[in-house]
């Protein structure tokens, strides 16, 4: 019969709470006798651990790596010495991350939003639409959204921002500086992995100025803000644009955005060509 570790894992999975399962998948040499194939740690985001890999130092290092994997939502196999030493390979630990879906927050309940919600759902995001105008921010207009919120972007970000991490994405689609600027400034204060803002090159330039005037750091803006939003795949319709945006979200998460694939912000010409 299953025991405490499975009970902890099962409870977290059924409760949609984040949890990491670290399992020894290879043992040799000096680690044998101390650590066994199948030895396990169940790790919660607050660092609480259940079980052992067979050595307290190995547990400590594997927990650190498990929490880093949880942050990025990745599955990895790590190799260690018998006591968790780096650059050794007597023990392999498979780190399996169970995290609730990453979040996609879309500011602006505009035409393009519905398509972005749909593509975001296909990719497995938990999708929120936020717009301060209650007439536009309705569940009827965005039936697939997990959450539709009529609230100012900065207020929403103050509430939700601290929960965001590198897997989460924020798209600002309002093209209206009065909404865009607070949404972007609010997102810059979070750890969200992706921040993009829609608009023509002219809108982009005006918005950039407003952001600087509002106290945004230019280096941070250059590093984090994907504006104009999306990969340059010639998208035109809301659906095509949603694909271009989601492709860029993926590219940023996978570290491909700089160079390997081309983003609109790396170019200079018209966004819609030909």
């Amino acid at each position, binding site marked *: *019969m*299953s*025991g405490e*570790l*499975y009970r902890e*894992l*099962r409870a977290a*999975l*059924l409760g949609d709470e984040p949890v990491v*399962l670290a*399992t020894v*998948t*290879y043992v040799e040499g000096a680690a044998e006798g101390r650590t066994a*194939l*199948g030895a*396990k740690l169940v790790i919660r985001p607050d660092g609480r651990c259940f*079980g052992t890999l067979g050595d307290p130092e190995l547990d400590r290092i594997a927990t650190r790596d498990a929490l880093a994997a949880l942050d990025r939502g990745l*599955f990895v*196999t790590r190799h260690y010495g018998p006591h968790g030493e780096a650059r050794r390979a007597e023990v392999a630990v*498979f780190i*399996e991350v*169970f995290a609730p879906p990453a979040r996609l927050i879309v500011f602006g309940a505009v035409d393009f939003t519905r398509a972005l919600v749909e593509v975001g759902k296909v990719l497995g995001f938990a999708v929120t639409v936020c717009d301060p105008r209650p007439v536009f921010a309705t569940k009827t207009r965005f039936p697939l959204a997990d959450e539709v919120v009529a609230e100012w972007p900065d207020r929403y970000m103050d509430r939700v921002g601290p929960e965001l991490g590198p897997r989460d994405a924020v798209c600002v689609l309002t093209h209206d500086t009065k909404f865009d600027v607070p949404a972007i400034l609010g997102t810059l204060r979070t750890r969200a992995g992706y921040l993009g803002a829609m608009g023509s090159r002219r809108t982009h330039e005006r918005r950039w100025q407003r952001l600087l005037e509002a106290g945004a750091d230019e280096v941070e803006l250059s590093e984090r803000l994907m504006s104009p939003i999306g990969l340059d795949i010639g998208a035109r319709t809301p659906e095509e644009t949603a694909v271009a945006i989601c492709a860029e979200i993926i590219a940023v998460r996978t570290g491909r955005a700089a160079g390997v694939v081309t983003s609109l912000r790396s170019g200079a010409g018209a966004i819609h060509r030909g």
Partner: protein
Amino acid sequence: MKEVIADIDRWQAAGRRVAIARVIGVEGSGPRDPGATMAVSEDGEVAGSVSGGCVEGAVVAEALAVLESRTPRVCTFGYSDDEALAVGLTCGGTVHLLVEPLDW
């Protein structure tokens, strides 16, 4: 893992022992990513999957063997493993599985 919990609950409620097989590594093209999970009850009922179907039968046999021996093992299926040629993946990749009794 989550998708097999309901079946495991049912099996355990009936007092049946359970083995779990998880993909822990894939080389080349593989139909399922690391983390894909299959659960097998001691009377051979199956939940979840670890491939597109090509090695499922062999994995059930490994799972039952593991319930017998009560010892976890790592199994490799694919073209790079001579012994497993008979159950090679059609996609040409290699998949490593940890098969273990659910006694933890």
